[in-house]
């Protein structure tokens, strides 16, 4: 069994009067793509925000590579990279400057910044627009900048929150390829999506959450069970949970 990279244990979270998470538990391992699935409003994004320390849990705990998010949030942030559908960039900085800024803030050593930024630009094939100001880039190019800044410090845990929802077919495929490649490098990839077709193709294991609760968890094949595909299984589980 591979190393447990992210351990979520009986996590609860309220946002205002809304009880968003009601005791979520799961584990994600290094070297796998772990799918966090559920309909819109199920609590996927809130779960990821707690894992990456943007929000604090009301009850339960979250550990990332042995570091508790409440006790050592900065250590957790050093080890996590997050890509979301909202790929905001600094418009008056070039793509390269955007990435270098996050590399420096993420603790990459001064002498290493240039080399690491160049490496990630090569890896994501961004050379043609690296020196252009971000305000002139296309959506796909901006998404690449967002990915680059999330991985430039080489974090062992990568989280993708609906990363393809604003992208065209070609850009979406590149993101999927990147997730597979990251898994091959031994990263723990957590993929949050409501697009079950993508999840079925990519994920080794999945957890389905609905209304803040886990309704199914296991390998993709286990969760699919006797159904034709994950979507049928998902609909059946959600219906049963009502």
């Amino acid at each position: 069994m591979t190393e447990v990279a992210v351990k979520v244990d009986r996590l609860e979270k309220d946002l205002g009067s809304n009880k968003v998470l009601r005791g979520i538990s799961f584990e994600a391992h290094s070297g796998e793509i772990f799918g966090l699935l559920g309909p819109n409003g199920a609590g996927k994004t809130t779960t990821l925000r707690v894992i990456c320390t943007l929000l604090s849990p009301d009850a339960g705990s979250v550990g990332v590579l042995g570091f508790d998010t409440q006790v050592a949030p900065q250590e957790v942030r050093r080890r996590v990279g997050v890509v979301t559908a909202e790929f905001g960039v600094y418009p008056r900085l070039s793509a390269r400057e955007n990435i270098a800024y996050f590399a420096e803030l993420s603790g990459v050593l001064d002498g290493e910044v240039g080399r690491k930024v160049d490496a990630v630009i090569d890896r994501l094939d961004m050379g043609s627009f690296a020196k252009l100001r971000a305000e002139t880039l296309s959506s796909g190019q901006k998404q690449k900048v967002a990915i680059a800044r999330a991985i430039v410090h080489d974090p062992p845990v990568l989280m993708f929150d609906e990363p393809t929802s604003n992208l065209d077919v070609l850009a979406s495929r590149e993101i999927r390829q990147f997730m597979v490649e990251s898994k091959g490098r031994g990263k723990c990839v957590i993929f949050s999506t409501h697009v079950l077709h993508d999840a079925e193709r990519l994920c080794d294991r999945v957890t389905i959450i609905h209304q803040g609760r886990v309704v199914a968890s296991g390998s993709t094949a286990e969760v699919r069970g006797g159904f034709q595909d994950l979507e049928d299984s998902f609909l059946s589980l959600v219906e049963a949970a009502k």
Partner: protein
Amino acid sequence: MSSLAIVFRKEIREILRDRRTLIAIGLAVLATPTVLFVISQVSTRTATQTYTAGYSGDIPAGLDVLFGATGLRLERVDDPAAAAKRQVDIGLVFTPAGIDEYYDPSRQSAQIADIRVQTILAKYDAAKIAASLQQKGVDPSVLNPLPVSVHPLSSPVKAAGNSFLSFFLPYILITMSLTGGLSAALDTSAGERERRTLESLLLTPAPRGQVLIGKLLAVSLLSLVAAIAAIGSMLIALSQISFGLSGGEDARVSLTPLAAAVMVWLAVLLAASFSSLTIALGTLARNFRQGQAYATPLYFITIFPASIVLFIPDFNPSLAYYLIPILNAVLVLRDAIMHNGVAWGPLIVTSASLLLTGGLCFYAALRLFTREALLVRS
């Protein structure tokens, strides 16, 4: 490099690439000298302009010479009262019994012509009386039994200049300290939320306090540069132009080194306080436009203290008044300019008040910056 320095350098780089901010500051720097130049031209022209006096009747001997020397041109008209309405600046009817004067007080040129006529006639009367007394063997000084010799302890022209500066300079300092960095402050706070970069920034391991201080220092530096540049351009303009205030003495205005030092210190405190305040307001806003709406009342709040010196020039408050932010800076700077001295008590109270205000605003900004409810809203 520390997170603070990384954020500061990035913010400065973005500010220097933001044409909107740079153009606004450039215009502000140019606006003050332009306005002063126009005022100077108007006041100089008013002082040297010749006005027309329409008259009828016979002018007493010698009076016409005085008119010519005082910038009043005499022009014979049929009806001076009617002519004074439009044709000439003032109408005079010379009769054996005296002079009838007609002028329209609603016309500025008529007011100036009236003052000149009164001055001429006072001198003419005094000269005629003195001549008559001398003719009769009487010393003319009997008309002035208690002569007064005035000995100003400082230049009256300089005092007038300082009075002008004591209003104008605090006004420029405060408005530029606020507006110079406003756009950058909103961009680095509300803009961060609007661009959807805030989450990514907070996901880095950089301590959030350092991130906010880096932003604060960048905005404060911009405010400070804007304020000092605007005041510098104003002082340069004032050193080059004259307002025609005096009859011979050079009416140029300048700032003493002591007043300049006080001004720079106050500019630093004001820039830091305003930057903290505007970043806090920007952090509360969902986007740049909403941040502007939140910041708009600040314009009015800051204008009132800056105007108090204009409306109450002799306002001499107790030390407690120096606890009021902005007003205290205006008063300290006014005193430094007018009296060329610093009262340490008010300066210390003012500094403490502004530092406390800035500190409270920074604390509010830090709390808002990481508040979960605002993050989720974004």
